[in-house]
């Protein structure tokens, strides 16, 4: 266990292992996401109240779910950065922050498009929507702070502190609909209870969530590899990668 942990500290080792996982992540992710989206948008039954307009849930919920989940992963990596000073943890945070920002934006945008026909407004400053907007700004802050500091070590620490401070927002997002009166409805999916929708609706939704997780894994590995190559461009092993292989 500890040996694995120490190996994780080696960017070179990670670069090789990522290559092995990436094709699987990409293919499985694409298959699951596409299957879930086609099923949800074309074949799942209509909602008794909202008709077809509820179908945006098949994009809205997975992107909102992943946006928060990515932040939690970033916070765990930030803790590793601060305590163990592991370079790879910082590579992860820098690589996935833009992905999280895009997904947060997608969740806000689809929510807005959904809100107009159902609630009657594009936007309202209720606790759920506002805390989600704060998450978007946190992502922007992480990206900006990371690129504002050129020294790798101080950049890693500053970003890690910001990410960890921002993690208090995650339970606020999650429980906002229970702690306060909001326009946003409570969660359809709870860990301890059955979802408040029939299986022909939640199964495709679950497929999209799983598919997006795998696609996120692929994209995270891909972006981490790029970041590693950039940081280690002066090392022997990266230079060796660039040499044409098998040439005479």
């Amino acid at each position: 266990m500890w040996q694995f942990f120490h190996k994780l500290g080696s960017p070179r080792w990670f670069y090789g292992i990522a290559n092995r996982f990436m094709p699987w992540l990409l293919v499985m992710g694409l298959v699951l996401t596409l299957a879930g989206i086609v099923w949800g948008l074309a074949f799942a039954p209509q909602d008794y109240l909202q008709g077809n307009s509820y179908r945006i849930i098949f994009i809205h919920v997975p992107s909102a779910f992943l946006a928060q989940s990515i932040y939690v992963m970033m916070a765990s990596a930030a803790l590793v950065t601060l305590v163990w000073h592991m370079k790879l943890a910082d590579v992860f945070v820098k690589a996935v922050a833009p992905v999280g920002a895009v997904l947060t934006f997608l969740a806000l945008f689809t929510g807005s498009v959904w809100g107009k026909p159902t609630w009657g407004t594009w936007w309202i400053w209720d606790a759920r929507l506002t805390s989600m907007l704060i998450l978007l700004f946190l992502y922007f802050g992480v990206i900006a702070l990371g690129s504002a500091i050129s020294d790798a070590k101080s950049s890693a620490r500053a970003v890690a502190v910001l990410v960890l401070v921002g993690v208090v927002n995650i339970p606020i997002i999650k429980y906002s609909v229970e702690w306060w009166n909001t326009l946003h409805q409570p969660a359809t999916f709870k860990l301890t209870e059955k979802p408040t929708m029939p299986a022909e609706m939640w199964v495709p939704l679950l497929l999209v969530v799983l598919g997006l997780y795998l696609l996120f894994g692929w994209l995270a590995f891909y972006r981490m590899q790029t970041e590693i190559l950039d940081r280690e461009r002066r090392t022997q092993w990266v230079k060796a990668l660039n040499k044409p292989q098998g040439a005479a």
Partner: protein
Amino acid sequence: MHAKRKKRLTIVLFLLCGLGVAVALSTYALRQNISLFYDPSQIAAGEAPGEVRIRAGGMVEEGSVKRDLDSLKVNFRVTDYTASVTMQYDGILPDLFAEGQGVVATGRLQPDGVFIADQVLAKHDEQYMPPEVAESLERAAMLKKTVDKPAEGSASGY
């Protein structure tokens, strides 16, 4: 674990806990400002200020919607099943507005307890189901009502 790392971990976790407590206390203190609307029972208890624009929300009471025949004016009661408040609105209601559904209205509470709304938003719950399921649920509820009614009638008839 290395002693130095252990120390760093303790410091980070300690700071995070402190931050969590600080945020929890301040959001708790601001809970009325964070909450989007007042419940009818809060209004009945006099917690909602008059004279200023506030939001009030709850369920539209069954059988309480009265539409004006020659204008867009509409009257309805909003309840949280302990208290209710009468609302007046002049405008186009959202598609999802219906008796038994949630609403959040912005407006002013009049001294006589009537809430004059200038915006009504629909609030839907986390339940999703196909129309057939909703229909059969409704049929089951109707059936139950017709079974209950004669019993009631006979009780009051004597």
